[in-house]
C-alpha cells in the first residue's frame, strides 16, 4: 500500500515537471523566434516582394548588394563602408542622418534585417571576443526594434590567392567565424543563412566567376546568386 503512495507521488511529480517544461521552454532571450534548426532550408521562391522587405546590415560586402539591385536605402553600412565587430556599436548612414545600427533598423521599421559581419578581423578574433561583440549588437537591435526578424548571414569566402596573402582575412578564419555565428544563432534563436555554401569552390575559396579582382568583394553575378539563395531560403 505504501509503495503505491510513493508511485502516485512520483507520477504527480513527473507530471508537474512535464507541465513546467511545456509552459517554460527557455528564457525568451535564448530562443524566442525559431526552433532548434536555425539554418534556413530550401523554400518556395519568395520573390522580389520578400527581398524588398529586407534591410542588409554589414560592411563593404553588404554595401555591394547594390550590384544585385538592392536599393541603397535598404543597405545599412557605416559611412566608411567598413565594419569590424567591436565593443562599440557603429553608426550607419540613413539618408543624411547618422544613426546607430539598432536605431537605423528601428527608424526604418525593418520587417527583416540580414546581418553579415565578421570578415574584417576574421583571422584575429577569439571566440569569446567575436561572440560577445556580435551578441551585444544583436541584443541592442532586438531592444530597439523587437518586431524585426533578424537573420544572421554567413560571411562570404575570399579568393584563394587573397586567403594566402596573410591580410588578416583567410578562408580558414572566415570558416571559423561562420561556425561561431551559427552557434550564436542557435543560442539566440535567430535564423541563419548559410549563403557561403553557394559561393565556394571545391577548395573552400570564392568561386572566381563571382568575384571582383580584389579577391574579397563579389560582382553582380555573385550578388545575383546570393539574392537567389536568400529568396529560396526564406523565413515563413
Amino acid at each position, binding site marked *: 500500500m505504501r509503495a503505491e503512495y510513493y508511485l502516485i507521488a512520483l507520477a504527480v511529480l513527473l507530471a508537474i515537471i512535464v507541465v513546467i517544461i511545456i509552459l517554460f521552454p527557455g528564457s525568451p532571450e535564448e530562443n524566442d523566434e525559431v526552433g532548434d534548426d536555425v539554418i534556413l532550408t530550401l523554400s518556395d521562391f519568395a520573390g522580389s516582394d520578400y527581398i524588398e522587405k529586407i534591410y542588409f546590415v554589414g560592411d*563593404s560586402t553588404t554595401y555591394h548588394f547594390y550590384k544585385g539591385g538592392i536599393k541603397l536605402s535598404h543597405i545599412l553600412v*557605416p*559611412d*566608411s*563602408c*567598413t565594419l*569590424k565587430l*567591436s*565593443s*562599440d556599436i*557603429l*553608426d550607419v548612414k540613413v539618408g543624411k542622418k*547618422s544613426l546607430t545600427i539598432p536605431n537605423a533598423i528601428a527608424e526604418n521599421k525593418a520587417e527583416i534585417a540580414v546581418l553579415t559581419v565578421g570578415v*574584417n*578581423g576574421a583571422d*584575429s578574433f*577569439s571566440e*569569446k*571576443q567575436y561572440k*560577445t*561583440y556580435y551578441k*551585444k549588437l544583436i541584443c541592442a537591435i532586438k531592444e530597439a526594434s523587437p518586431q524585426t526578424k533578424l537573420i544572421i548571414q554567413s560571411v562570404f569566402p575570399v579568393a584563394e590567392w587573397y586567403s594566402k596573402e596573410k*591580410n*588578416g*582575412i583567410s578562408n580558414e578564419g572566415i570558416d571559423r567565424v561562420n561556425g561561431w555565428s551559427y552557434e550564436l544563432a542557435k543560442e539566440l534563436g535567430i535564423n541563419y543563412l548559410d549563403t557561403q555554401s553557394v559561393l565556394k569552390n571545391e577548395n573552400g575559396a570564392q568561386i572566381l566567376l563571382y568575384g571582383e579582382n580584389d579577391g574579397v568583394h563579389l560582382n553582380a553575378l555573385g550578388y545575383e546568386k546570393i539574392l537567389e539563395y536568400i529568396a529560396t531560403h526564406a523565413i515563413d
Partner: protein
Amino acid sequence: MKSGSLLSLLLICIMLVSCAVNYTDSLSSQELMWLAREVIDTESGMRWLDEDIMLEFADDMPEYLRDFAVVRSNDAKNINEIGVFRAQQGHATEVFDMASRYIQSKQSMYRAMNYFPEEQEKVDNATVKIFGNYVVYSFLNEKDTSALYTEISDALK
C-alpha cells in the same frame, strides 16, 4: 632572431628612458585620458568605450592591469583612437606587449582593406609608449601624437 634582438634592445631602451624619469602613479587612466583629450583636435568628438573593449586585447582581464581608458573618434571615417593603461607596479612591459600586439593587428587590418587612404598617416604613426606604470597608445596624426605624449608626460611628472 635579429629583429627579435633589436626589439628587445628597443624595449630595454624605452624602459631605461622611462625609468630615468620619475612618473607619478596617482592618476587613474580615466583622469589621464580626460587631460589627454583636451589637447587633441577632436572636431567630431571621441567616445569612451566600455570594458568590453578589453576583449580586443585579451580574452580575460589581465591581472597586471589596474585600470584603463580607451576612446575612439565618433566619425566613422576618422580612425583617431587613444588608449591609456595603468599597470600594476613592475608590469608595464606586459601591458606594452599587449598594446603593441593590438596596434599591429589593427595596422594589418587597415592596410589590407585600404578603406582609409586619407588616414594612412595615422596608421603608420601608431605608437605605444611607457610612462612609468602607464602605457599609452595612439592612432593620431603627427601633430596630435606629439601633443598627446607631451601632455601625458607633463601630467605625470
